[in-house]
């Protein structure tokens, strides 16, 4: 019940602080800019695939940076004190942060991919099953990359007390780490689902470490 309440609250927070707006409007706009910016020439690659890859990278880093800044500011202002003096487990705070931003960025991903599919259907005069297949594979990759970036953002937020250091770590650490999701499919291009292995495993490890760090932290 506590986790559900915290999760809903965090979502409301992202909605009210315009984070959702940035992701849900900004990323789809980026898709359209990409298409027209390249003059529609994306070397035969379906637009939806390109969108998913860019989303995984940009959306992941963007949401990780938002997480880091929100967690560092909240730590500075002792926001968590009023939660932790109540029957709230620290791990619920960590999980609610991750789940809410991940849901936001995943929805932004679906919206952007849908736009990519619409563009592809216009370009190719319909959506063929290879395009759908490529889009699905790209979606798996994007979701995995975003999960890794978001969980890394949570960990960095709880470790770092400096905003600048936090953001640098996101750009150089979370971004590089999220690329791990693409490694299996580079080795075995036909097995796109393999992106889910690092996409699930790494976030679980990063979140467990974040919970441990927050558990040990003296506020």
């Amino acid at each position, binding site marked *: 019940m506590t986790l559900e309440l915290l999760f809903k*609250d965090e979502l409301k927070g992202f909605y009210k602080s315009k984070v959702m707006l940035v992701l849900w409007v900004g990323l789809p706009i980026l898709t359209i800019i990409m298409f027209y910016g390249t003059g529609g020439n994306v070397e035969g690659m379906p637009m939806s695939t390109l969108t998913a890859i860019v989303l995984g990278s940009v959306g992941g880093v963007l949401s990780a940076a938002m997480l880091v800044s929100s967690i560092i500011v909240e730590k500075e202002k002792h926001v968590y*004190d009023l939660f*932790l*003096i109540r029957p709230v487990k620290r791990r619920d705070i960590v999980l609610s942060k991750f789940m809410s931003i991940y849901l936001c960025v995943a929805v932004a991903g679906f919206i952007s991919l849908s736009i990519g599919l619409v563009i592809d259907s216009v370009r190719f005069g319909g959506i063929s099953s290879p395009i759908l297949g490529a889009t699905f594979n790209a979606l798996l990759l994007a979701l995995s990359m975003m999960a890794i970036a978001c969980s890394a953002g949570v960990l960095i937020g709880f470790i770092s007390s400096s905003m600048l250091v936090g953001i640098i770590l996101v750009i150089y650490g979370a971004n590089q780490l999220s690329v791990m999701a693409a490694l299996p499919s580079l080795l075995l291009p036909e097995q796109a689902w393999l992106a889910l292995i690092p996409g699930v495993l790494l976030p679980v490890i990063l979140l467990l470490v974040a919970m441990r760090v927050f558990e040990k932290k003296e506020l």
Partner: protein
Amino acid sequence: MAVSDSNVSDVVGLDSVSKFYGRFQALDKVTFEIHKGDIFGYIGPNGAGKTTTIKILVGLLKKFDGSVRYDGLSVKDSWMMISKKIGYLPQATGFQEWRTVNHALTTFGKLSGVSGSALAGRIDSVLERIGISDIKDKKINQLSGGTVQKVGMAQAILHEPEILILDEPMAGLDPKSRFEFKEIFKDLSKGGTTIFFSSHILSDVQDLANRIGILNGGRLTHLGTVVDLEERMKLPKEVDVVLSKDSGKWRNKLSVRGIREVVEPDPHHLIVRLEKGADIDAVVDELIRQLLASDCRIRKVSPVAPTLEELYMRYLGGAEQQ
């Protein structure tokens, strides 16, 4: 030496609590009990360890030596059960700024176990009690520091806790708000709530607290009432006398055993300083008799109790000399 005053009705007990930040020792074997219904004032200079004690009491600091118990339950083992009984106001209240006051209180109320149907009514009543009903739908980032402090107070008492722990609750409040807070504390105490608070405003501590603890350099050096501290300090007593008619004859005639000196700060106003150990009642009886015999008329005679501030400053001065 640990200071203690054990009592069977203890609600909270700290036993030999020590806390280190690296090599720095913030608390050194602090031992005291807070009794049911107490308003306990916790005072000490900056850096004495007051906030560290409070953070240990509310479970925010978990790494410390010694034990802290609420009704016999250890904070280290049973925090989830204990936390429902506690209300806490930190020194700087931090809220997520996108929340409205109502939303923040709704969340904290739910987390503290206040049921959905009762919660809305409880929020209204608490906001009204604190005098901030008009800001219910305002965002936290639109409020002044003092008003955020009041919202902090609202979240602390929302779930009707048995024990209220407050870190500098009246810092940053205007005199009117300070008076209102003190009235709230008194009402809560009458209703059976145990209150533990730290403060730098010693007049507030004197107004409110029935027991005080003085922390200095991480050590609890005094535990008891203000009167206990007064007796411990053995300050010379004073009597304040206001005359409606001052013949002036008393200057040559006055000879009362136990009086050290008489000072006239203003016309018709005498401050009579007594020798240490003098019997104040006997001195006042004889003083009145001799003043009347000197053709004076008396409007007021009252013993002057030293303020907590005076006692505290002398106490700290003594501690520094030692």
